């Protein structure tokens, strides 16, 4: 068995990255080094979001985005589900009315289980209702229309939009802003960030989405994973700098190595 040409470096890099991240996770769990994440204002505002809804006696809405769990959008959706777990804990703690809307059918059972387990863990199993998690539509525009309707009909007080978003991002965020709904958007969808920045109270951008789970739970293992990813970014910065210098000097050795 041989590795297909063009994938040799990628294969070994994947092995090295995985080993590094596993090492940092283990080291952090064992307390070998302490990981501190820089403050992310948008994530701090989630509790305020739920608290506001509780005080107003109106629901807090959560969307795990438009992504699926079987495509390239899987990391965004799984990160959004980690945030859902935290929001469920806070909503259960405050006894807030909670509403989760789903676009992809595959995400529905995961979201339902996450919310149900959150209420059980908070000793609030009686407060859990099956209609807290609602499948709206797998069509993105119909999903937006359904959620906007819910904003009006349920008189939502706060909305947390996490995960992958596409063209309907502005429809959701602008409609909520018009109704005075407090919003926190957490997305790595570069093209949609401008709209969330314009229409939401807080916007958490790019890779902050993937770090959110660790940031909110303060779990040592997850924090170790974030530290491992930071080391990888530093290595990539180093490779780009060395590659640029060598290319300018007339050598394509780094490019050849990466495409090996």
């Amino acid at each position, binding site marked *: 068995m041989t590795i297909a040409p063009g994938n040799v470096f990628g294969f070994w890099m994947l092995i090295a990255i995985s080993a590094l991240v596993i090492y940092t996770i283990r080291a952090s769990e064992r307390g070998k080094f302490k990981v501190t994440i820089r403050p992310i204002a948008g994530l701090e505002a989630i509790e305020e979001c739920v608290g506001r809804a509780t005080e107003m006696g109106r629901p807090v809405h959560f969307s795990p985005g438009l992504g699926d769990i079987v495509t390239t959008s899987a990391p965004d959706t799984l990160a959004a589900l980690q945030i859902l777990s935290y929001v469920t804990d806070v909503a259960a703690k405050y006894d807030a009315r909670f509403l989760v809307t789903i676009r992809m059918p595959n995400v529905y*059972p995961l979201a339902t289980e996450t919310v149900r387990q959150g209420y059980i863990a908070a000793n609030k199993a009686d407060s859990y209702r099956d209609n807290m998690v609602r499948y709206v539509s797998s069509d993105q525009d*119909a999903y937006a229309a359904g959620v906007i309707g819910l904003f009006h009909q349920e008189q939502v007080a706060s909305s947390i939009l996490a995960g992958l978003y596409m063209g309907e991002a502005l429809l959701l965020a602008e409609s909520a802003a018009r109704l005075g709904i407090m919003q926190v958007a957490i997305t790595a969808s570069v093209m949609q960030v401008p709209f969330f920045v314009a229409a939401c109270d807080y916007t958490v951008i790019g890779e902050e989405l993937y770090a959110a789970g660790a940031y909110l739970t303060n779990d040592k293992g997850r924090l170790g994973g974030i530290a491992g990813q930071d080391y990888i970014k530093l290595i990539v910065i180093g490779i780009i700098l060395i590659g640029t210098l060598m290319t300018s000097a007339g050598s394509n050795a780094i490019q050849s190595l990466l495409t090996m």
Partner: protein
Amino acid sequence: MQISTNIWQWISVICIFGMWSLPLYKDNPFYRVCQNVFVGSCAGHAIGIAIGNIVNYGFEPLFTQSKIDLLIPVILGLMLYTRFFPGVAWLSRWPVAFLVGVGVGQTIYASLRSQVINQSIAAMTKFPQPTVGATINGLVSLIGLLSILTYFLFTVPQSGVVRGMSELGRWMMMVTFGVGFGNVVSGRLSVLLGELLKIFGDWLGMI
């Protein structure tokens, strides 16, 4: 002016007005009817597609071509419904776990290849470039990339050079977002023009 006699044009335009009534006026029964027609028809369409897929890619090859291996996805699919039976509800987690595993497995190498290795190669440009303009362009791209990467270092203390690069990265992103905002707004205007064409052209026959 010749108003269309096609019933579907009328329904289409009525639905457009219904959707517009929410932002232009407020929540109203007309909007709710149009919203529910839209969501319901999309759900019906999705169910139709799903049933077609199950029959065409599942049952038909399984029973007419005896492709026994298709029993695995069929059984996994049926296991999803065990969540409605409390005694065996735990079985519904297996297909979900399988889906998540396949999703992550498919994504992990593709992301590394396209988002890390290929982009790193693309960033390694030669300096100086043939023209001053191209050199400045290349430098802005390189510094922008490195500063934005620095902004997303979460566990490195934000002081000294890191802080400076991080701030620069933030400004770079804000400029990029501004450009993106402008592009999409012009794209949305073309969508609005499409709707106006439907109303004044296809429906009223004025254009």
